[in-house]
Structure formats: C-alpha cells, structure tokens
C-alpha cells in the first residue's frame, strides 16, 4: 500500500508551522509535502515542469489548500486542477482565514470537498486537525491510485 501523502499549499510559514505542530501532536500519518505558492501548486498537481516525474512527485492522498496565495490564488489552483485533471478527484480541503460567502461558494463550485477557517488558538487548531484526521484518514476511503 502506498504511503499516505498530504500536500499542503500554504504561503504563510507561521501557519505551516502551527499546522505541522498540531498534526504532529495529533499523530497525522504519512508524508507531508509543502508548496509555497499557487503556481507551484498547479505545476505539481498537473505534473508540469520540475514535477513531471510522478514516481518522484506522486499525486497526494489529500490536499490542504490556502486561498490567499501568491502568484496564483488558491481558487485558481483548485479550478485549474479540477478542469485539467477531471479524473483525478483528490479530496481538497480549503483551509483559509476568509469567511467570505463568495469565497465559500466559489470554492465548492470549483470542486472543494471541505471548507475550514483557520482557528486562532492552537488548541482550536488541534481540535480541527484531530477531526480532519478522524474523518479523512480514519474513516474516509480513497482509491489506491487516481490514474
């Protein structure tokens, strides 16, 4: 069985730190890959450029996507990914500080599977990460391969 790979696309290093800190505390399994802007995210997900080799850069089991990203926004990443790879329906969790209705609607319209706002307190964040782990890793099933 292939290792569980979580792809985190997030530009704010503090948020990356807090999330990884919480994941560690929660015992998040598998490997974790972090990308720091939208363009990089698109390239990885579509297997373009430096990420063409899928054995080295395999499709993740779960994507955690920030919306407010440099170069390309999270919504652009999501839209492009869902449009160019319609068969590779990897679950996408939008993880953002935006509470805007527009962002929520767009995210779901472009194919997000979940929309979470970033809690400010580490305790609350830990609670969210634990819930994610329970739902997406413990109970949710994904195919062995998206190909």
């Amino acid at each position, binding site marked *: 069985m292939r290792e569980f790979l979580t792809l985190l696309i997030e530009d*704010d290093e503090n948020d990356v730190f807090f999330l990884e800190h919480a994941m560690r505390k929660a015992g998040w399994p598998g490997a974790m890959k972090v990308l720091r802007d939208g363009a990089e995210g698109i390239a990885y997900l579509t297997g373009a450029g430096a990420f063409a080799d899928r054995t080295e850069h395999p499709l993740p089991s779960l994507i955690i996507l920030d919306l*407010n990203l440099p170069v390309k926004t999270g919504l652009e990443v999501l839209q492009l990914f869902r449009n160019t790879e319609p068969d590779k329906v990897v679950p996408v969790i939008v993880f953002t500080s935006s509470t805007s*209705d527009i962002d929520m609607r767009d995210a779901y319209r472009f194919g997000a599977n979940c929309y979470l706002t970033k809690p*400010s307190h580490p305790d609350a964040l830990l609670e969210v990460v634990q819930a994610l782990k329970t739902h997406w890793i413990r109970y949710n099933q994904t195919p062995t391969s998206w190909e």
Partner: protein
Amino acid sequence: MGLSRQNGENEFRDLVRAGQIGAMITLALGAAGIAGWIFDEPISRTLWKGGSEMKFNTAVALTAMGVGLLSAMRRAVWAKVLARIAAGLLLLISVPTVLQYVFSANFGIDELFFRDSNFVATTHPGRMAWYTASSVVLLGTGILLLTRKTGDAAALTQWLALAAGFFPLQALIGYFYATMAVLGMTAQTGYMSIPTAIALLCGAGALLLHAPGRGIMAVLTSATPGSVASRALMIVLVIVPLAMGWVALSLVRRGEHTIEYGIATVALITVVLLVTLTWLNAFRLNKAEEALRDREEQLRFVTDHVPVFIVQCDADTRYKFVNAAYAERFPSRAEDIVGKKIREVVGSRAYESFRHHVETALAGKRVEFEEKIPYEQFGERWMHCIYVPEKALGGEVIGFVAVIHDVTTRRAAEEALRESEEHFRSLAEGMPHMVWECDRFGAWHYRNAAWTEYSGAAMESVPASSWLNYYHPDDQLLLTRAWNETLRSQGAIRFDVEARMRRQDGVYRWFRVTAAAVRNAAGEIVKWAGTCTDIDEQKRAHEVLEHTVKERTARLRETVHELEAFSYSIAHDMRAPLRAMQGFAAILEQEYASQLDGTARSYLQRLVTASGRMDRLIVDILNYSKVVRGELDLAPVDVQKLIGTIIESYPNLDAGRADIQIEGALPLVRANEAALTQVISNLLGNAVKFVAPDVRPRVRIYAEGMSVPGEADMVAVCFEDNGIGMPRESQKRLFNIFTRLNRPGLYEGSGIGLAIVKKAVERMGGRVGVESEPGKGSRFRVELRRADGI
C-alpha cells in the same frame, strides 16, 4: 271659448244635420211642386185638397233653394259655384216679383211657363205671394253670403234666416188659427200656400243652422248659463202661447165663452207663465253668478300666488285686472291700479320702451320679449313679457293679457357668468401655456391661442376627436389609458401625464398634460378643462441630471466597494500575524511554562488576553463589514425556530447558564436568515453578558403588534432582560459603532455588536429601539415586516 269654436263642427254635428234635413225637405217640396205643375197634379202643389196652390215660380225657387243650401254646406269648389248659381236663380225670380208688388207692375214673369187657370183669392194669377217673394229674397241673399270666400258673415246670414223665417211662420199660424186676414194676407199680397210655408220654414231653419256655434246662434248653443236658460225658455215660449191662443179661440168659436173671457184667460195664463219663467231665469242666473264669483275668486287666488305678474288691459291700455304681485310692485293696491292707464302706473319712460309691443298686441298679434325696462320707481329691470291679444266674439281686439316675469337676477347671473367666462377666456388666450376644454364625453371644443400657435392648426380645422394625433405615437397609448381612466373614475383619478406633442415644424417637445373636471352645483361634470405645460427643458435637464447622477453613483459605489474591499482585506490580513502571536504565545504558555518565572508568565498571559481581544475585534469588524456590504436577499424567516437554533448552538445561551423564555407565538418575518441570526445572537449575547455579578440572566422574548396606524404589516420582536440596564442619555449612542458603555475588564466587548444589529435590521427594512433604566434591565425591540400575510 276658443276651444269650443275650434271643435264647433263636430260639437254641433246634430244641428248641422238637422239643417241638412231642412234643406232636403225644401228641395223635396219644391220638386213636388214642379212635378205637380208639369203633370198637372194639383195635390202635389197643395199637399191636401182645398189648400192654396204653390205657384210654379215658387216651386222653381224652392227647388233652387234646396240645391243652393245643400251645396253651400259643402266645402268643394264646385259646390260653392253651384250654390252661387242657385242663389242667383232665387234672386232672379224673387227680386222682380217684389218689384212688381212695390211698383204695382206686371213684368209678365208670373205665368212665363204655365198659365194659372184655377187661381183662387189672388188678383195676380200665377204670381208668387208677396211674403214668399220677400222670404226668398232674404234666403237667396243669405245663401250668397255663405259662399263668400273670406270673412265671417255668420251673424248676418243668421239674421237674414230669422227674418226670412218670420213670413212662413206667420202664414202657418194663420192657417193654424184659420185666419189669414188677421196676419195681413189679402188677395193683393197673395196667400202663401202651406207646402211653400213649410218649405221656406225648413229653408230658413237650414240657413240658421249652417253655423250653430257662431254668430247669434252661439248665444243659444254655447254652454254658458244664459244659453242653457234661453234654450229651455225658447221651446216653452213658442209652444205655450200658440197652444193657449188655439184653445181660447176654439172655446170662443164654439160659443161656449165670450171673446173677453178667452182673452182674459190667455192674459192670465201668460202672466203666470211669464212670472214663473222670469223667476226661474233669475234663479238660474243667480246660481250662475255665484259660480262665476267662485271661479273668479279661485282665479284671483291662483293669480295672486303665482310668482309672475299677470295683467289684463283693455284696448285703451287701461288696466282691467292686475294680480297681487303686480300691485305690490308699484306699490299699490290692485283696485287702485285697475282703471288707470299703463303709462300712469309704470311711468312714461318705461311705457315708451315697450309701447310698440303693446301696440303689436292690440293689433292682434301675440308678443314675447325680454328687455331692460327703465322704471321710475325701482330703476332698470330685465323683464320677460308675453302679451296675448284678447278678442271679442266678433274677432275684434278688446285688449290683451300680459304675463310678466322679472328676470333681472337671472340676467345678472348670466351677465356675471359671461363676464367671468370672458375674463377667463382672455386670461387663457394670453397665457403661454396651452389651455383647452372638452365636453363631458371628451369632445374638444376650445383651444387657446398658445395651442393654435404651437400646433399650427386653426381651431376650426381640427376635428373634436383628433387631439391624440398631436402627440407622439409612443405616448398615445399612455394618454388614452390615462384619459379613459379619468373619464371612468369621473375625475377621481387625476389626469396628469407627461407626453411629447408635435410642433408645427414636426419637432416633438415634452409637455405636462393635465385636466380637471368642471362641475355644476349638483356636482355633475359639465366639462373638462385642461392645460399643456411645456416641460421640455426641465425634462431634458432632468435626463442629463439623471444620467450624471447615475454615473456618479456608479463611480461612488465603485469607490466605496474598493474602500470596503480594502478595509476588509486589511482586517483580514491583520488576522494572520495576530494568529501567529496568539499561536506562539499559546505554545510558549503550554510547552515552555516550566522555563518561565512568574513575571514572564503574567506578561505572557497579558499577551494572550490582548491578542484574544484583538481577534474578537477583527472578527466583529469583519461581520459588520459583511452586513454593510453583502447583498441581503429577503425571504420569510420563522423567528421562533431561528431562536431555538441559536440557543442550541451558543454555549453561553444554554439553559444551564441562562433562562431564556419565548412567550406566545413568534411570527414569520421578511428577513435575511444569516443577518437575522447575527442580530438575535448579538442581542441574546448582550442580554446574558450584561448582568450584575451573581445574577442568573433571564430573557423574555415575545412579539408585539404595531400601534402606529399604517404600519399594520410590521411586527416587533422584543427581548427583555434582567441586566444592568443603562441611563437614558446613553441609549442614543448605544447603536453607534465602537460604543462601549462599560469599563473594560468588567464586561468585555468590541462595541460593534449593536452597530451590527442596527445596520442589519435597517438593511432588512426594519427598525431597532431600546428602553432601559439602570438596574432595571433593558428591552430591545426589533421591528420587521411580517411575512405571514397578517
């Protein structure tokens, strides 16, 4: 009187028929006489054996008389001609005969056709008797008069008939009493035979009855008391003396009584008869007089109480009658005016002004006029007068009756109306606005000069129904609808439309077209008056203004949107570093507490608290901005259900911490569910937060109707708490953003919660208010539009 005269021919049909029968008898007896002579049959000339004979000339005259009378009674032209020929024949026979008697001459006409072989008791064989000839002359003249084309000679004809009838009557009485001599008939004058006497009497009767309703016959045939009495008396007076004379004579002849006794008896009976008849006549006349007086009084009553002047004058312009209203006018008593001349009463100036009308009336013509008459007594008055000439039986004018009405007030009102109309018309003509009028059905009948100048169409050349054609085709439907609506609503819906109207050069300009109903005193619409005001420039300026406003509004909105987006993103971006501060502080506190001393831990605690407050503030600002910026779609929201959900999802509202009661049913309101959720959770949050220490928060929620009329579609949801309350002066600024009424530390808050409540409620078309007193709790009212159809 006039009426009975008109119907005379029908009313006296029986009398006329009797006259015709008389004429036929005359004709029959004459014809029998002629036949008697031709066939030498004496009996048909005498009617009975031994009587004196009808002469041949007489027989011819009687036949002609019969034909003449019957023809004269017909209207046809040939009949009139025949009657004239017959009358001429009568005169041709009778006049020479009379002349023979007068001049004791013999013209040889007596035995022109037949020799009178067996004449008796006459000195002139074959000659018509003197009485017969006289009678025939009179009747011939009478028939001739009847055939006249013009003029009414009824009276004269009747006098002639009466005179002509006298002779045969005289002869018949002579025969009746068997004494011809007594009545003046001698051998010299000849004796009128019995058939001649009967024929002449019938002829005279026929002539007398040819027009029973006119002339002297009218006295006998009319319905007046005199006529009725005379008709009754006439029969008695003819029959009784004749009978009495015959009885007395018979008695004397039989030798039973002396002549003296006979005459005395006749005299006695005649006296008794005459006295009785006179008394009867007086009695009837008294009765008639009384009835007449009654009628006069009634007439007087009526004439005195009609609101017009009634006057009767004679041909000499002297008053014969005036009603009370007329007498009061002058002012005088009716009896003082009667007998005076019109000029004396009304004054010379007044009389001269209408004298020609009086003269016309006295000339026999009806006059009606309305003129201003200058009275000396009370100045100029407008009088409406009708003069009807009064004619006597004979047709001559004996005066006139006047019905006069003072119409000064009406004329003044008319004059005032005309002046006012003229005033308005000249006002309308001088106006730069178009003014028009149409009748109550909408047919155009007036347009002022401004209209004509603008449209270039003369008033006369425009059909009453074509007003619509002068407007822009795109505006015609609107105008028609509005106009029909106004007409249908009887003016209740005002006609006020903006439409484009065509100028004579084809250019359309904007006009405001209005119309109002013109009503009479009874409130009925008599016509419509309207105006067209040129609003083209305003309209265009307005269009430009509207365009500018739209443009600027769009720019402003854009700016506001940018600003909002800017502030939103600032608030949003502020959260990221804050989250880092909070996060690191929390990790430090949890994982490195053992390495910090008490002071450092307290600083760290302060850092956590401050950043927590900052985070709440930012969240609240973001919520506020969301309420201000976001589109709020309104839909029916069940408040009761919503409050239940809110209480369930907020830990600080649950039953363990607070006592929240919903009293009665809460209504459906028109709201945005998310915004209303925000509103209610903020209010409930405040209600449970701002309570005195150790007091269990208690909140009552209930609905209330609106007391203000006209707001029946609104409902208020009230939140009443047992909190700390607030002073009146603070309540005003309570809903302003960043307003906090309490010291930090005691009750934490951003000062944005109630600003969000106010903004959200207002954006949902509602209102929010508060009543509160320090220490006695607060009551918040949220008024929203009902969605349950009340």
